[in-house]
């Protein structure tokens, strides 16, 4: 997860070759430690962070939460309502909805987080290159991004997924997850690239970048030691906010029958499987939907808090 805590180390050299004495003296806090200081004082952020923590543990060790096998099906219990022994009831196949909801956390969250990481790395790289070099490289990369932005997200995902991971392709569970992550990153990178480009443009002509260049630093050194640490904040904000959006995009794609499917247990798959049974009993759909909502909300709240903490204008 891209929490600002791990990137706090960047604060030690925000001004390139600035003296590390100020940091040691603790007189002036950098942007990152300032943001962290601000974040831990927001109750909403702490609650959201705790919720995300629970979901991460759920995704990593689902057996901590339930000892029921999510694949075990007893048809005689099909669609039984919630009771003391099965808190969330049973689904159409007579499987325990609680167990399936717990096990559904892993694919939903893994897909969302991996897609954001992939989109951020690729989009960030493209955006930084476009912003740093400018000229025809910038024009070429920006036009390329616009072409992908012109493609509406769901539409593009449907087209690509139906070609590569359609029901006929016979892809395995891991392959399907991998393809879904790639497609989401493939369609999502231009947004990150645009933000990375504009934040690099904002610091490109700063004195410390000029100074580094004047001292003979190559493009790689200027980008990674001087530009990146100072242009990182908007990218991190965008990435954090996107995690929630990507998790819900996964559910949308699964609902349409082209994202994750049957061998994979995920919240979106549970919603897709029981959509036609809404009238008979809603519980096999409502519980996964509630978990999905809570997870997405928690990520969106973290993103919102990080944005406010990192953007001094909003204070």
């Amino acid at each position, binding site marked *: 997860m891209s929490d600002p805590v791990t990137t706090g180390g960047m604060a030690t050299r925000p001004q390139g070759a600035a003296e590390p004495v100020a940091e040691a003296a603790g007189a002036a806090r950098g942007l990152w430690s300032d943001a962290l200081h601000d974040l831990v004082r927001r109750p909403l952020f702490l609650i959201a962070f705790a919720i995300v923590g629970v979901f991460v543990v759920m995704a990593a060790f689902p057996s901590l939460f339930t000892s029921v096998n999510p694949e075990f099906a007893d048809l005689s219990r099909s669609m039984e309502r919630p009771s003391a022994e099965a808190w969330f009831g049973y689904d159409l196949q007579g499987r325990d909805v609680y167990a399936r909801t717990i096990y559904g956390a892993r694919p939903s969250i893994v897909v969302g987080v991996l897609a954001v990481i992939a989109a951020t790395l690729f989009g960030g790289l493209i955006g930084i290159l476009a912003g740093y070099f400018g000229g025809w490289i910038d024009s070429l990369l920006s036009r390329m991004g616009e072409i992908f932005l012109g*493609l509406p997200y769901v539409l593009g995902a*449907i087209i690509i997924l139906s070609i590569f991971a359609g029901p006929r392709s016979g892809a395995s569970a891991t392959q399907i997850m991998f393809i879904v992550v790639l497609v989401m990153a493939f369609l999502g990178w231009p947004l990150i690239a645009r933000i990375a480009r504009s934040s690099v443009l904002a610091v490109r002509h700063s004195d410390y970048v000029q100074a580094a260049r004047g001292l003979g630093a190559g493009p790689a050194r200027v980008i990674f030691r001087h530009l990146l640490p100072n242009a990182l904040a908007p990218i991190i904000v965008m990435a954090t906010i996107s995690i929630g959006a990507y998790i819900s995009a996964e559910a949308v794609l699964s609902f349409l029958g082209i994202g994750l499917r049957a061998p994979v247990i995920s919240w979106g798959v549970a919603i897709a499987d029981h959509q036609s049974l809404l009238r008979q009993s809603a519980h096999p759909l409502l519980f996964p939907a509630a978990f999905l909502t809570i997870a997405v909300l928690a990520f969106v709240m973290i993103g919102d808090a990080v944005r406010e903490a990192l953007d001094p204008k909003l204070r």
Partner: protein
Amino acid sequence: MGRYTLRRLLQLMPVLIGTTFLIHFMVWQLPADPFAGRCGERPCSEAFIARMTEQFGLDQPFYIQYLTWLKNAVQGDFGVTFNQVPVITLIENSYPNTLKLALVALAIEGVIGITAGVLTGLKRGGFIDNLVLVSTLFLMGLPIVVVGFAMKWIFWSELGWISPTVSTEVRWSELIVPGFVLATTSMAYIARLMRANIAENSRADYVRTAVAKGLENKRVVGVHLLRNSMIPVVTFLGLDLGNLMAGAIVTEGIFNINGIGLTIFRAIGRHDATIVVPLATLLVVIYIFSNLIVDLFYAVLDPRIRYE
């Protein structure tokens, strides 16, 4: 203004060509066999394949195929489907429904979003302000699938107010619930945008002048403040119309509305490239042009903006 419009139109060309080429290439060229699954469980007969290959020019290089298609599309000829139905008939049947749905959603998000934004922007920090801030966060986070099924469950299963599928005539009244579902996310964005604008502009010089002149509060807010704060919101609404039409696939799927999104989705399921390419292109073109129109509309709303 004229020169600016022309320049923007010229800049659109590479994007339009790139996007349509991307769609065309992905749908026609990437699947190994365009006839896989087209004839049910049996493989297609030789005669059928030969006739279709001839009709759609599948034996030609891909760039020729694309250019031929582009030439016809620019002249308004979207071709026929594999079943020999003109694509324009499909568009005529489904497009008005999508447009209706998007307009209903736009009206709902406009009314609710702007009202909430104005109420909270004028009185910051109060109870309503905090309530709206938390609920917009909630609305932005809610996955549209969840909203759709929650609404369908409440209004159909529990209350019985709506029918699970929208009838073929697609009456306006039937579109209220689907329109609301489609509008949820944008509603929250509009409320936040409006709130921020009102809060910012209420400190502006012209508002202070208007108050100092002794104008009544209604006039200051309604004419001076509101009109200036509406500019970014109108932009957003315009952008969103294209977005709503392209993003209506899920809503149309949940409520079975015979719109363009559902038509595309079904065609993708049947691997019918003859439908997918023109309809997807149509959505992309609408999306891109709605961006342009909004940009040009700026100048009408705000005389300070001049494109020369």
